[in-house]
């Protein structure tokens, strides 16, 4: 693959700075990971639409720009950030500005024994930290250029570690803010979440940034759910209107673990969510719940990979898209059922609601089944607001706008109702309604 030196210059410089001799935060084990990942990234280059995995999503706007790392703009005020906060009492709130941990914006309450929440940069230099045994073990980058790039340049992000049997009821909120200065800026947060045996935790990642300028977020989260652990993960994308966001959540689950990951996308101009899990122990269960509500020329690609490696695991994928204007939503759901994974129960649904004639949805299920005693179903729909339902509501007195909004809300309601944090659910409802009211066209309102 041709990745010219010019294209990777900015990344090159940064990588060299990170991996130089005597640089703080560059232990040997990490240095070799960074170097191997960078070598792989240079071999792969940025993907093009000729790659099957990137067939519908053109990342040329990212590949051709010289994004720079560590360029900071105006730091947001506490007020600005509060729009993105959770009202709930959080166990911890870590704020990252342009990919770097910001102590002044963050708050870590007294955590119960057995819970560690800190910046990844800190964890890397802490003696005896378990980071080395987990980092970059599951988000493989052999075929994933963006994950390779993130790994080559990984520096900071969140580290969450919950020890055996520990239950953390309050959520941990991770907020990533891009200041988006005039210059093209990139941030590459890297998160590591480890839930040990029979532990329980909830993590919310919110990605947000300033409107009006182009920036690039390349984020990778590794989530390890060990035996019998229960983890709820939320990713709320409220990036700025010109942001390009490439994210990868890679889950690894062992016996009887239960992971629910939600991906709610509202922001960004070009967004790709790679969401994957390996069900690597019997009795594991995963639910991927997604909602994308797009307008203008937004392009959002959700790319799911559920790898059933062991028997008796359940997977559920429910992704819904609401597409207005000339936006485009892509969904790819790949389910692999390995030879040993008997009694697999996999179910995948992708539904799209088109609010405009110019909006477009692509839905691609991919089932690869090598076991013989499995239950796997998939279904996809692409449609418009039902005219019979519209007339039914209008015939009772609801105006056209109110009827349409109610039906769009109803379409999204099951995805929204699966959000188990009250204030986050109402935040998403507000985002939905705001978007609906924005979309109200003059002349249609009565």
């Amino acid at each position, binding site marked *: 693959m041709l990745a010219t030196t010019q294209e990777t210059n900015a990344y090159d410089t940064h990588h060299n700075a990170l991996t130089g001799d005597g640089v703080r935060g560059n232990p040997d084990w990490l240095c070799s990971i960074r170097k191997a990942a960078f070598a792989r990234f240079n071999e792969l280059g940025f993907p093009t639409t000729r790659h099957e995995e990137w067939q519908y999503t053109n990342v040329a706007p990212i590949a051709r720009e010289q994004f720079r790392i560590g360029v900071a703009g105006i730091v947001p005020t506490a007020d600005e950030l509060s729009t993105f906060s959770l009202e709930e009492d959080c166990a911890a709130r870590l704020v990252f500005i342009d990919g770097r941990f910001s102590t002044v914006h963050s708050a870590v309450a007294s955590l119960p024994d057995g819970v560690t929440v800190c910046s990844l940069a800190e964890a890397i230099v802490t003696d005896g930290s378990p980071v080395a045994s987990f980092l970059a073990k599951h988000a493989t980058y052999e075929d994933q250029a963006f994950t390779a790039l993130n790994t080559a340049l990984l520096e900071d992000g969140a580290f969450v570690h919950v020890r055996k049997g520990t239950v953390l009821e309050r959520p941990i909120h991770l907020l990533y803010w891009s200041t988006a200065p005039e210059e093209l800026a990139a941030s590459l947060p890297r998160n590591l979440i480890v839930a040990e045996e029979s532990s329980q935790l909830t993590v919310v990642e919110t990605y947000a940034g300033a409107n009006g300028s182009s920036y690039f977020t390349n984020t990778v989260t590794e989530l390890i759910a060990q035996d019998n652990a229960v983890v709820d993960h939320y990713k709320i994308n409220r990036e700025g209107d010109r942001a390009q966001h490439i994210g990868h959540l890679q889950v690894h689950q062992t016996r009887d673990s239960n992971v629910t990951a939600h991906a709610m996308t509202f922001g960004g101009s070009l967004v790709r969510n790679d969401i994957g899990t390996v069900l690597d122990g019997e009795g594991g269960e995963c639910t991927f719940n997604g909602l994308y509500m797009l307008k203008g020329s937004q392009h959002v690609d959700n790319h799911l990979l559920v790898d059933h490696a062991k028997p008796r695991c359940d997977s559920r994928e429910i992704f819904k898209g609401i597409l207005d204007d000339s936006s485009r939503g892509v969904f790819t759901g790949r389910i692999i059922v390995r030879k040993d994974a008997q009694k697999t129960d996999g179910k995948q649904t992708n539904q799209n609601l088109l609010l405009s004639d110019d909006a477009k949805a692509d839905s691609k299920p991919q089932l690869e089944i090598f076991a013989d005693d499995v239950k796997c179903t998939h279904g996809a729909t692409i449609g418009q607001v039902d005219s019979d339902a519209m007339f*039914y509501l*209008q*015939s*009772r*007195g609801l105006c*056209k706008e109110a009827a349409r909004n109610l*039906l769009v809300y*109803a379409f999204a309601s*099951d995805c929204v109702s699966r959000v188990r944090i009250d204030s986050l659910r109402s935040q998403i409802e507000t985002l939905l309604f705001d978007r609906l009211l924005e979309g109200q066209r003059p002349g249609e309102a009565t």
Partner: protein
Amino acid sequence: MLEVRNLHARVEGQEILKGINLTVNAGEVHSIMGPNGSGKSTLANVLAGNEAYEVTGGEVCMDGKDLLDMSADVRACEGVFLAFQYPVEIPGVTTSYFLKAALNARRKHRGQEELDAMDFLKIVKEKAKLVDLDARLLNRAINEGFSGGEKKRNEIFQMAVLEPTLAILDETDSGLDIDALKIVAGGVNKLRSKDRAVIVVTHYQRLLDYIVPDFVHVLVDGRIAKSGGKELALELENKGYSWVADHSAETATSA
């Protein structure tokens, strides 16, 4: 109250209504009967403002106002109600939420204050009794998983809550067992008043044993072929629709 003059309408390019004339006064119950495909449901939908039907000629006035000039929601706020032949299932929206929005839309239209949750609940409980509807159904998504009878009862219940001046029942009786039919008819009868007009569209004479109409009109091929009192329904029952169809064909030939 309702004045329909020479109404023509088509759906998907095909002309269905070919000149309907109908006058309905306040306090009256009119029954529209007719064979399949005669245009009964089209008439009901056109009166309620379904945009899938295109009006190609004629006039419809309600209390002196041009109904055809109004969108479906404005007609509803003006007092038109259609009980659907096939009530729509809407997952994700509860009946009570939707009905409160509908009731408040019409109150707003009339310059009345919106109802709060307590007042609304009081109305709902009272009206649910009228059609023997389990109030718990109201907290479920609109018609989702309802039986046929529950759906029809839900229509009459909504009618009771919204208190229309002109209620149009589109084959509300079709497919109902006798118990459900009695409940539905009982609900309609309780809503009969001197200020309200009801148009009952039906295929079967049976309903009219329970909702006794003041007038019966027989629709054949997009026109009212015959009008009369309630005895016309019985005559139809005995002689069948072909009797009217032949009769009207003869009239057309001799004219």
